[in-house]
């Protein structure tokens, strides 16, 4: 008995293995969130049930082993598994309920937008300083003096003063930081600092100084050049 259930069970199991372990390893892919895996498995199960109930015969063939399993009719050695299931099911329901109602020890979740939109006046500004080797060199010098204590001499966000800050200082050699931003965005972030962020950027947590108080605009533009050059990245441009 149970032959007609082996295939659906194997199908669901292989679907799970595929979503959980194969999909994340496909180039350009990422691990799927458990809620999405759950949704796909539910869809698979629904498809199996629809397929199995297309005709009266297939429906009976599909449900008969399930009914027999539940009622314990003619299932022989499966009886032990049946008792196991009948005990496990209420326990699982209880466990799920506990998980969703018990008071949590976790602090409130924080969803920080890493690159929130800049104010309008900072979009599309172009760097007014000409890109000469001297200016880049000067920018790197300013960077070393003002930025490297946190953002690191290697532009990797691992400066000696970085360890206590949460969020950590940006790593400019990471392709998801300055490489996907325009120079005007960096100009805004350096000028206004952490306290210039909008609410979704959690301005109350950023240690980035408000450099407009201390550095002239021209120095900031040179620092931006120095950062891109030093981190071997290019600013994002309009195609």
């Amino acid at each position, binding site marked *: 008995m149970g032959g007609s259930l082996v295939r659906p069970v194997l199908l669901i199991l292989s679907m799970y293995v595929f979503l959980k372990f194969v999909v994340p390893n496909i180039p350009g892919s990422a691990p799927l969130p458990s809620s999405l895996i759950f949704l796909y498995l539910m869809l698979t199960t629904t498809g199996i049930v629809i397929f199995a109930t297309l005709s009266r015969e297939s429906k009976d063939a599909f449900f008969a082993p399930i009914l027999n399993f539940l009622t314990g009719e003619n299932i022989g050695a499966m009886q032990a598994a049946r008792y196991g299931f009948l005990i496990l099911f209420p326990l699982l329901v209880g466990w*799920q309920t506990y998980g969703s109602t018990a008071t949590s020890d976790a602090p409130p979740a924080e969803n920080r937008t890493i690159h929130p939109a800049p104010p309008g006046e900072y979009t599309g500004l172009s760097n007014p300083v000409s890109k000469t080797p001297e200016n880049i060199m000067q920018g790197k010098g300013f960077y070393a003096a003002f930025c490297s204590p946190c953002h690191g001499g290697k532009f990797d966000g691992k400066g000696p003063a970085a360890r206590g800050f949460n969020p950590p200082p940006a790593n400019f050699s990471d392709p998801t930081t300055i490489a996907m931003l325009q120079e005007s965005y960096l100009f805004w972030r350096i000028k206004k600092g952490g306290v210039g962020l909008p609410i979704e950027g959690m301005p109350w947590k950023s240690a980035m100084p408000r450099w407009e108080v201390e550095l002239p605009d021209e120095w900031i533009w040179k620092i931006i050049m120095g950062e891109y050059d030093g981190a071997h990245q290019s600013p994002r441009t309009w195609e």
Partner: protein
Amino acid sequence: MKPANQIRPWVSGVGAVVVTALILSGAAPGLAQESESVSVSAPMVKGTLPVDDPNAAIWSTAKPATFPMSPQVHWPNRILETTVKDVSVRALHDGTQVAVLLEYADPTEDPDDAAAIEFMVGDKKAHFAHGQPMAQVEGGPVNIWYWKNKDKKGVDMNAQGFGTLKIQTHQDVKATGAFSNGTWKVVFTRPLATEHPAEDTQLALGGFINIAFAVWDGRKDGSGDLVEKGSQKAVSSWWYFRAEAPPDYSGYYYAAFAAALALGFQFVLIRKLKKGQAA
């Protein structure tokens, strides 16, 4: 050894249970996501709170949380290197008062060694650097509990931006420090709730509140000037603090009720199915 024809149904039965468990656990939120310290949890103690004893044995019942420190670089006057790299924090409460123990390595005891705890006050978020004004968000003030070795007392203060530090007219914070073997242990104590909610952070049981730390090593340089002073100090980011509420068993009650319901459902379903099969 069981014969193969007996094992196969077993395997498919166990397989069905495993699949059910996998599907259910796939929907279970946040399974075992252990992370580094983000929160100080203060358990409730019965008996006396060690309000002025940094070395009391009862401190070992509180789990320590360790937070990394950085030199204060956000605002001038900056400092680029500070002595203290980490602060370990424990806390306890007795339902009326809270006691917070900061522990950190400092090679020498100096009269100007100092430490502070900072909290947000009220509903508005405050910048971790003394509640610095924010351009796009209306921020709130911070409440600072300060201790300096040579003063031998706690000071209760407020600030909303650098340069706005103000000592409160009502002092509710007590602090005591003990130095031994290159380690400072400093205890801060205050009632959980006070009559000044606009200035004093209110610690409601069970609620998470933002907390940050600052430490000054009171050593002097060659010319006799303090190296770490004022805004030149070691600071932490915002983390969380919670005074634990008395144990809540309602989660177990709900779980037992749900399991009983599921059991009842199974019983009724199987009875109905058996009747159907018999007919």
